[in-house]
């Protein structure tokens, strides 16, 4: 039995081709069942995300398998021999899937979202009756590999984007963010993204202050927060735990002299200041105040870069784990292992059966 992979990803195809070829969630299961019914194809799973569309197929012969996938692709209006598509045979497919679910093939190295997406795709194909012995075994093993890679290496360590670094730091200061009040000064794109990441963690409330009140109202509605007139932000500031500065002001909007008396009234309540503006909105000296933690855009980016460096260092270890599992799976596929995980060759030679490392 051959296990094949045909598709495209952010490595091989531009977004224009990916979006053209993308398969909506609702069509994935039906398409997998359709492919499963093609001559020579025994099983099929289709993974479609914003960064990749891949067909995983178990076929009796390589040529038959790729031909069946090619027909499906052509039926969707794309030439299967167009530039940007990759074709992998058994050994390459096994390694590729293990790398994909482990986040090694992702645009953001080590991201974990892809595992959920592949699980969803597999479940859809399975429910549609498009999977059987080989792909069931392959995908189950892939999920185990992903778990092992994530728990035994630092491939997911630290946040690697400015917004997620800000959220991670906030959680290291406050723990759960459910009781935190966030204030946005300046309704810019970066502040919106960062506040959105905070909102996704369930912050208690969000205040938006902007020189244009209408823009503040729009963003506040989007964030399910409260718009504040820019001249009145200081009035609402006392209860704020997280301040996101992103105004276009040419001077500091918040200075240490302004903040010091406020902090004296709330010594047991830290303040996390995120300054995304250039020129900066918050005077650097506020970081010297007790209980105030100030991060500007460079500091956040430096932490993101550091985390990415740690992840890159882990690639070699991850690849070694994946290689070990890929070799074991290839042996099983070649008939070296029974369903129960006992090596054929050992039992045939009369030696003690060896338990598979699953």
């Amino acid at each position: 039995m051959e296990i094949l992979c045909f598709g495209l990803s952010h490595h091989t195809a531009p977004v224009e081709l990916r979006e053209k070829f993308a398969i909506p969630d609702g069509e994935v299961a039906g398409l997998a069942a359709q492919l499963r019914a093609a001559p020579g194809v025994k099983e099929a799973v289709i993974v479609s995300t914003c960064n990749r569309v891949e067909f995983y197929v178990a076929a009796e012969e390589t040529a038959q398998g790729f031909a069946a996938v090619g027909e499906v692709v052509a039926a969707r209006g794309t030439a299967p021999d167009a530039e940007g598509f990759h074709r992998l045979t058994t050994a390459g497919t096994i390694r590729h899937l293990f790398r994909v679910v482990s986040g090694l093939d992702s645009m953001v190295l080590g991201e974990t979202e892809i595992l959920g997406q592949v699980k969803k795709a597999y479940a859809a194909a399975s429910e549609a009756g498009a999977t059987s012995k080989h792909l069931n075994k392959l995908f189950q093993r892939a999920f185990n590999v992903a778990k092992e890679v994530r728990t035994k290496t630092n491939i997911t360590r630290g946040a690697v984007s400015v917004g997620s670094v800000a959220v991670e730091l906030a959680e290291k200061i406050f723990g759960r963010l459910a009781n935190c009040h966030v204030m946005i000064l300046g309704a810019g794109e970066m502040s919106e993204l960062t506040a959105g990441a905070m909102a996704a963690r369930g912050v208690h409330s969000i205040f938006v202050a902007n020189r244009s009140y209408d823009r503040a109202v729009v963003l506040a509605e989007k964030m399910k927060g409260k718009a504040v007139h820019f001249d009145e932000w200081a009035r609402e500031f006392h209860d704020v735990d997280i301040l996101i500065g992103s105004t276009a002001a040419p001077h500091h909007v918040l200075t240490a002299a302004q903040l010091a008396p406020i902090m004296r009234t709330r010594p047991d309540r830290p303040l996390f200041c995120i300054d995304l503006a250039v020129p900066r909105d918050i005077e650097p000296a506020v970081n010297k105040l007790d209980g105030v933690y100030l991060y500007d855009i460079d500091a956040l980016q430096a932490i993101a870069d550091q985390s990415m460096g740690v992840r890159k260092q882990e690639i070699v270890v991850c690849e070694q784990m994946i290689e070990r599992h890929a070799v074991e799976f290839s042996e099983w596929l070649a008939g070296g292992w029974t369903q129960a995980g006992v090596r054929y060759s050992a039992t045939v030679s009369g030696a003690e059966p060896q338990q598979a490392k699953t």
Partner: protein
Amino acid sequence: MWRLVGCAPMELRSACHPLCSTTPIPGQRGVCQTATLPIYLPAAPRMDRPLLVISTFCFLFGFAYTMHALGARVYRASRLNFFAILIGFLCQTGFLYLRGQQVGRCPLTSLFEVLIFLSWALVLFYLLIGPTYRLSLLGAFTSPLAFALQVGALLLLKDAPVRISLPVNPWMELHAAISIVAYGAFALAGVAGVMYLAQERQLKTHHIHSIFYHLPPIRDLAVANGRLIFTGFALLAVGIGAGFMVGNWQSHASKVAWSLGVWVLYGAIFALSKGHRLSPRRVAWLSVAAFSVALVTLSGITFITEPGGN
């Protein structure tokens, strides 16, 4: 209290409880008013010290394992460190039980035993607090202190247990035991304070080390710190109250003053932090400093009042 002036033989001087309040009877130099002759333990092999050594190695293992894993960036939150500390605690408990059997009372008859009891109380609070608050790495920070207390006791202090045939005064036992358990709470507050300062420094300087991802949020550490200080404060109040119930407290005014001083110090820290007069950072610094001072003075006073210690 209990300053021997020379006529009693050395072996007699170790008969009195170092934390007790008994006063020498005027004219009977070197004889505690309630003391009778000590009974030396037979030279048979003692099982208590091996237990203590095992527990010490358990704490060393827990600490070394965590530090190695953090250094190699392969640390994963696991129960290995917790179980190492748990085994160490069980061995400590075994030691204290056997020692209690040997001396015929709560094993607080020497500075050696006081330090071991303090280490036990520290670990006890960790085992109670750690799983409840899920403060990651609290064990890794607790084990070196427990290890240091026990190694210090094993290497630096004489350990000659003596059975004291005095009748056991329950108030005295309660006073001594509860007071040391209170110090265990103060010790763990100091540990939480160190963790707070380590995490806070990284947040302030933006220099994020691998340990940053495993340390708990500083707010959780501040909460744990405050609760431990209050717990120790309340327990020490009970201990001091029990001490007054023993009676004759005027004869050991220096110890009473010292105990009250420690109690007032922690009470002030707690009150100021609750009254929003101190930031968590200052409370963390104070919890470390206060425990350091309390440990040194406890050792000093216990050593001075210990028979033969002066």
